[in-house]
């Protein structure tokens, strides 16, 4: 069960004067159960990349394999792929349309042709997973707050029970509290269900705490693909392409320059605190 990208390129508006290369020879392997962050500056091709993974965009060159099958093959069932690889778009609340939250979440599983009881059971489960209680079920999705709307929209994709969940900038436009809530819920989901999760973001700070692996995109190519601590070692190069390592990386490097023997590879605030305390204790 995995997704493999084999030399994938994509060109917008091929054969027109406005043609633009969005992806350039991408090779990636996404195994099961990983929590991956895809980071890149605006226009680096990260949204284009994830739309390839469930067949919404067809690669101009190269192939994509899901469990060993070419997704552009003639026999391949794209509808099945879309239920297995769930994609939550940027500002997913813009796709809400039903009269109440519950029916909107039912839309996805209903399209899979499941029986009514199964559809409702899944919708209830998905709404519970994103932390929306029953009092919201009968409300119009347009009356909810921004963060609630977004969670309802994410539930709409979760209800299809995908094996791979892709979230494109799930925290865009949310306040810090809403952001933390969503990210924590996603993390919880991943540990509980063992789902593969791809989190697209332009902020290292957002993903550093949660993911096992970071893929850095720059101008349509993969720049780095490694564990967070390995990627953050290149913080100078990241700055050059308009990205930045998390603030703890900078603090740790500054402390080391001042002569403190700290490990500069820590990635989260909790780890950094521990490291600094340990260092101070050995000094005394």
């Amino acid at each position, binding site marked *: 069960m995995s997704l493999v990208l084999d030399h994938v390129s994509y060109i917008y508006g091929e054969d027109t004067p406005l043609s633009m290369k969005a992806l350039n020879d991408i090779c990636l392997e996404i195994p099961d159960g990983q929590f991956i962050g895809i980071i890149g500056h605006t226009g680096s091709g990260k949204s284009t990349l994830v739309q390839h993974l469930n067949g919404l965009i067809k690669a101009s060159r190269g192939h994509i394999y899901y469990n060993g099958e070419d997704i552009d093959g003639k026999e391949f069932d794209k509808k099945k792929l879309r239920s297995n690889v769930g994609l939550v778009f940027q500002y997913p609340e813009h*796709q809400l349309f039903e009269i109440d939250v519950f029916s909107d979440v039912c839309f996805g599983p209903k399209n899979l042709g499941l029986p009514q009881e199964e559809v409702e059971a899944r919708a209830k489960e998905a709404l519970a997973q994103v932390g929306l209680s029953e009092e919201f079920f009968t409300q119009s999705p347009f009356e909810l707050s921004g963060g609630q709307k977004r969670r309802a929209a994410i539930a709409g994709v979760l209800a299809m029970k995908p094996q791979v969940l892709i979230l494109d900038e799930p925290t865009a436009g949310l306040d810090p509290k809403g952001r933390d809530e969503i990210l924590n819920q996603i993390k919880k989901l991943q540990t509980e269900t063992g789902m593969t999760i791809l989190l697209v973001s332009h902020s290292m700070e957002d993903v550093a705490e949660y993911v096992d692996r970071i893929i850095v995109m720059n101008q349509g190519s993969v720049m780095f693909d490694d564990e967070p601590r390995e990627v953050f070692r290149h913080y100078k190069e990241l700055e050059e392409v308009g990205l930045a390592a998390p603030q703890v990386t900078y603090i740790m490097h500054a402390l080391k320059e001042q002569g403190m023997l700290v490990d500069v590879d820590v990635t989260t605030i909790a780890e950094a605190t521990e490291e600094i305390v340990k260092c101070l204790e050995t000094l005394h």
Partner: protein
Amino acid sequence: MLRDITLGQYYPEESVIHKMDPRVKLGGTVLYIISLFFMKNILGYMIAALFLGLVIKLSKVPFKFMVKGMKTILMLLMITVVFNLFLTQGTPIVTFFGKISITWEGLELAVFMAIRLSFLIIGSSVMTLTTTPNNLTDGMEKMLGFLKVFKVPVHEVAMMMSIALRFIPILLEETDKIMKAQIARGADFESGNLIQRAKAMVPLLVPLFISAFRRANDLAMAMEARCYRGGEGRTKMKPLIYQKNDYLAYAALVLYLIISIGIGRLTLF
């Protein structure tokens, strides 16, 4: 998915035609179309073709793009030709079933109609391909300015037009995005009978309308915040002023009109 519409599209390029005052292009297109309907013989159309070819050459827009626009009206063109061919009275050439016949007059009319329509479409695409929508509405506003005397809100209409034109690509992009989001949720826009397809449009149309209203509301607010209150006393950042090239273009246009209509109306036979 929805990026294949070329009719009315702008083609960015640096050329004399692109830099021309939109009023010249607008007036020129209208006069050119009128000239097409005044001609009576093939010689006139040859001059019209020559003139059009020259303008296209000067505009540096690939001819491929002009023809793309033709595809959309191919059906209309065929119907017109067929009707003219079979339903014109005159001296018959061939007769089918003793009733329907192709006449000399019909043949002539069909050929001329086909030429007129194709030149008309290509001629107007030259204008839209070389003029940005904003420029075009600016030109229209200035040209129709005299209507203000008759209490026609020319500026407001022009403003609405340019906003509408500006929002077409945005709404197309939005449609594309919502469509993809719903397809990712298993929506099917492509199969089923007519009723099923119409029903499948609901998840697309509801979010699209909401977003259109939201955008309209934001824009109105932004305009109000900048104290926009209509055309009265408003100045332009880039006022339209005729340059030397524009006068030359007018001269060329008049010359073309005299020659083409003069020759085009001669009776050759």
